[in-house]
């Protein structure tokens, strides 16, 4: 029983992180129709900056148990790069998808090296800080409380996004803009500002994902380009642009990863891509494709 619970919980943890990054990807794709290859790099930025900020804060004598909020703040602060990158993307909104994809690939190349310039290739971590919240015993499995916090935070954010999109005036404008941008514009909505907000929100979701994962691992120079292929699998399985798709896709990829790591590690990525291909063949637009944001 303990084994099963432990697998269930670690699958849920990786799904939580994947959901945050994939949600950033989906939000931007849903509204702006741009598939942003750079979300993996945002995730890496979040991880590096999160580790640095928390280590600095702890060094300054701030209470250690607050570090969870430090990570969230790190993710939110990185939102400032959103408007800058959105400005770079602006000239290509009306261009062919191939060029949009390539420009985000250019951003991947640049962000990879900027991250390396700032932090070097040494791995960063927050040590054993995440254990200060202790562990709990769930039906025979020992689970760090930190993991539960991350799962709860991702769940809260998921519900928050759902409410934002379905219940608020801003969400209605977003969904309308995703459907027909020109129409929304002619109704007097400043879509230029809307795009800046949406893109920055997407950045923050990905950077929070990166910041929250760092206590349980360490940063690596390749973590961004590696994550984008997983986030990509999530959104293709779930359906491009759909938030519900991001949630379901994250759970599928999270559990597939965890199960194969537990039983036969070599096939981890193979299985993910097989699922992707099977989904694309049976439901080309993903499980929830065609839904708006």
């Amino acid at each position: 029983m303990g084994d099963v619970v432990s697998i269930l919980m670690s699958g849920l943890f990786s799904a939580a992180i994947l959901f945050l990054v994939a949600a950033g990807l989906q939000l931007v794709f849903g509204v702006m129709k741009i598939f942003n290859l750079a979300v993996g790099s945002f995730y890496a930025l979040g991880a590096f900056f999160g580790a640095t900020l928390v280590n600095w804060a702890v060094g300054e004598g701030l209470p250690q148990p607050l570090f969870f909020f430090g990570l969230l703040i790190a993710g939110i602060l990185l939102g400032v790069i959103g408007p800058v990158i959105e400005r770079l993307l602006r000239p290509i909104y009306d261009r062919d998808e191939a060029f949009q994809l390539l420009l985000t690939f250019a951003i991947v190349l640049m962000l990879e090296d900027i991250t390396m310039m700032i932090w070097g290739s040494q791995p960063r971590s927050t040590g054993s800080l995440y254990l200060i919240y202790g562990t709990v015993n769930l039906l025979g499995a020992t689970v760090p409380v930190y993991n539960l916090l991350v799962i709860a935070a991702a769940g809260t954010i998921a519900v928050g996004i759902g409410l934002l999109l379905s219940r608020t005036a801003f969400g209605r404008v977003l969904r309308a803009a995703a459907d027909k941008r020109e129409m929304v514009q002619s109704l007097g909505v400043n879509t230029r500002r809307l795009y800046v907000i949406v893109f920055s929100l997407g950045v923050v979701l990905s950077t929070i994902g990166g910041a929250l994962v760092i206590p349980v691992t360490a940063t690596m120079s390749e973590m961004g380009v590696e994550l984008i292929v997983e986030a990509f699998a999530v959104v293709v399985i779930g359906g491009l642009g759909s938030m519900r798709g991001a949630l379901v896709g994250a759970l599928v990829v999270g559990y597939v990863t965890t199960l194969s790591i537990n039983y036969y590690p070599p096939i981890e990525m193979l299985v993910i891509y097989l699922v992707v291909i099977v989904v694309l063949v049976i439901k080309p637009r993903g499980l929830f494709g065609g839904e708006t944001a």
Partner: protein
Amino acid sequence: MSTPTERTTGSTEVKHPDGKGIGLWLKLALVLLGIVLLALLPQVLSRYYIILMMPFFAYSIALLGLNLLFGYTGLISFGHALFIGVGAYSAAFLMRDGGLEYMEPLILLSVLGAVIVAVPVGLLAVRYIGIYFGLLTLAFGMLFYSFLLKFYSITSGDQGIRVEKPILLGFIDTTGIDYLTGPFYYYCLGLLVVMALVMWRIVKSPFGLTLRCVRDNSVKAESLGIGVYRYRFYAFLISAIYGGVAGVILAVSVGQVDPTMSYWTSSGNLVFMTLLGGFTSFLGPIVGAGAFILLQDQVMSLWEYWRLVFGAILALIVIFAPSGLMGLLTMGWKKVVR
């Protein structure tokens, strides 16, 4: 959101590779001059630069194929490094496990390998266009990458496999001469010229015209009785064959195969080269491959953060000069002539 089989966003104002530029004879003379220059390089340049240029032939051949897909058929593949990887690993396996020592059967069998992979992948992928085609090809590329990385007993994982120097044309081996900068260099040059001529015939044939028709208006093409999927599939297959040949050359010139050959960023770099040279021009991708390799060497020797520089260059090209170096050259030429 529109269906994946329709163009979703507005098309670019970029002219596709069928426009008339400078005169035909001048073009021909320039191409011949280019070939002669390439043939003379080993006499002029130091060994370092010749070795550096070896992957140029491999990438040029791969990009000729990739641009049949991208420039002429309008499909962007973010997984084309898959076929370079299949070609390279086929050659490595055939030499390590099959004991094959001759270049020509190596190329033929590796191309066969690329075709065997390309048929199922292509049949699935050509049903989509735009971003979905790009993402599906990316998925297949990564599938192959993870196979290479994880199945250590067959592929030696991230250590890769050493590749020997095969015998060329049945009698040229490595005894007593500098194989790479000598016979193998000219072998690759010859192969590039032949494969470029074949590709030129392909794009100028009715078949090539049909591909462009499919690219520009697939609905109209369909109503004219053209099997859109079938033609996209043929283009995909041809590009895979070119990728397979490129993989063999790359494996021999580097002397080593490893999984990063098939990683998605390698595919991204291939598209980068195509765009750098100019996808609207037949020779653009070849120019792009050369420019990419030289530029990479120069920037890397000056600053370790070459990807930052390259990212900025790519961004500038995408935003301001989508027809690449060849586009800029043609524009400059027109100003001079006038």
